[in-house]
């Protein structure tokens, strides 16, 4: 039963590592990547000095994609982390204390869970001209109901186990039992959902930036790059294809890693 390494798993890990490197490298080349020069506009892939060609503003497509990694990926990571913090805090309390606390938090989470996240993000961030981090914050709130529900159900499975009762017998404070005894036991659940949520957030945030919400015009970002590239889609398809493939590859890798973590968890449960 110890099937720990799979080929898709290795490929995803390599892709994610490459993106992490691109994020670091990208922050050094942002200036060069976003520099516009009409003289170099619309070069086709394979042009000298521009392997993937340039867009309508003369920006190198490969360089712009590397520089865009930070904006495209950092936000989603922050969204997944932030919403998980809310999930652990509120979902943990709802699952651990039950009764009124659970009823209150659960009701609100259920209510927010059925909201169309993308639509609300477009309307609120768009109307208020929200910047990048305000949009991220908004998505943290909109993503949290699913984390609250998941952590709640994970904690519910734990609260009736003997170790919790034992800890209560020792009159360890409740908050300590919850956050230092129970939560570490749902760690796999947390990790799985962090990965899956980062993937969903990547698609959501890039959809927003494609529509021109949350990311300033001219800045390096995959969604934005696709939006800028759509007018030259037949002159240089790479302008759209390169960032699109990157989004899909990263989102799929995150999904695969998430599935891998959760299946490892299930295997351990069987043993």
């Amino acid at each position: 039963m110890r099937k720990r390494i799979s080929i898709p798993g290795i490929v995803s890990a390599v892709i994610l590592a490459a993106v992490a490197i691109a994020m670091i490298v990208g922050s050094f080349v942002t200036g060069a990547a976003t520099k516009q020069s009409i003289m170099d506009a619309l070069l086709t892939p394979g042009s000298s000095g521009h392997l993937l060609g340039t867009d309508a503003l003369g920006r190198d497509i490969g360089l712009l994609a590397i520089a865009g990694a930070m904006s495209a990926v950092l936000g989603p990571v922050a969204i997944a982390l932030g919403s998980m913090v809310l999930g652990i805090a509120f979902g943990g309390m709802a699952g651990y204390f039950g009764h009124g606390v659970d009823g209150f938090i659960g009701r609100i989470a259920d209510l927010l869970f059925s909201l169309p996240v993308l639509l609300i993000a477009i309307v609120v961030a768009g109307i208020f001209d929200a910047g990048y981090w305000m949009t991220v914050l908004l998505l943290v709130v909109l993503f949290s109901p699913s984390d609250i529900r998941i952590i709640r159900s994970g904690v519910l499975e734990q609260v009736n186990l003997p170790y919790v009762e034992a800890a209560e017998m020792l009159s360890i404070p409740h908050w300590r039992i919850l956050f230092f005894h129970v939560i570490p036991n749902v760690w796999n659940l947390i990790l799985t959902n962090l990965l899956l949520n980062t993937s969903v957030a990547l698609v959501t945030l890039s959809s927003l930036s494609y529509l021109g919400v949350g990311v300033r015009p001219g800045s390096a970002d995959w969604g934005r790059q696709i939006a800028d590239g759509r007018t030259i889609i037949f002159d240089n398809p790479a302008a759209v294809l390169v960032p699109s493939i990157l989004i899909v590859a990263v989102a799929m890798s995150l999904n695969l890693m998430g599935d891998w973590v959760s299946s490892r968890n299930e295997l351990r449960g069987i043993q």
Partner: protein
Amino acid sequence: MSRRSGTQSLTRFLVIRLLSVVLILFLISFLTFSLMHLVPGDLVKNLIGNRPATPEAIAQIRAQYHLNEPFLSQYFSWLANALHGDFGTSIRLNEPVSTAISARLGMTAVLTILAFVFAVATAIPLGVLSAIHSNRPTDKFITAAGLFGLSAPSFAIGLALLMLFGYYIPIFPVYGIGSGGINTLYHLVLPSITLALGLAAYLIRITRAAMIRELASDYATFAFSRGLKPRKVYLIALRNASIPIVTSSALLLTYLVGGTILVETVFALPGLGLLMEEAVLFKDIPVVQGLTILIALVIGVVNIAVDLSYRFLDPRMRDSQ
């Protein structure tokens, strides 16, 4: 505990659901109304937009929105109008919001229904197939395809299809809505496939998981061992699996609402999604308000319908009246 909630009468259940939907709509309408006051800039100026700000126009806006009255009474007169379908005048289009919405409603309705039909017609058979062959190559392939559908943003898929069918294999029209009737449907093929992809990916996952659970249950094992034709057992299992599938369709709706905006933007389709996107970017608040209320209403109605169908699909809940 589930027995207890299962035995409450249908009327009581309906009344509670209806009341909660009304309450939520009330809350959303209040938030939507407040949007107008929260938008940066001067309220009257925002509502006048590009029209000349003559004293008459200003007076007309102030009268229409009752701006001289307290906030709450402004809200209630706005709500009273909204209940009659009057959301004011679009700033950008200079026509009543209700006219702007009803002119575009049909396009979006056809697009979403087509997408839904495509998604259901492909995803449920694929999900069942995946469950039957679980952990074998067929399943792995379908799961991978589903993973792609979940990971690919619909605007990227839309643009890729545009490129493929608009340039390399020009068999589908890529822009516009055609000349009505069959021609319009033909124009909507690519957009609805784009929209269907994400939907189908969700549906495959849900169908697969539900079918695997049903096929692993005692009644399925028993039916197989009695020598029932596998096809028959699959059909029985699918009927039971339909409960979680239908329940999840409320989630699919929230996906559709966002997806329509992206797909209509990519394919330049004059529907409600494009109207919403342009209204947001232009700060055309009355249109945003009207659309938000409409969407909230649709989501509320679909949620009630899903809850009802759940009760009818599950005999344990149906018989208990």
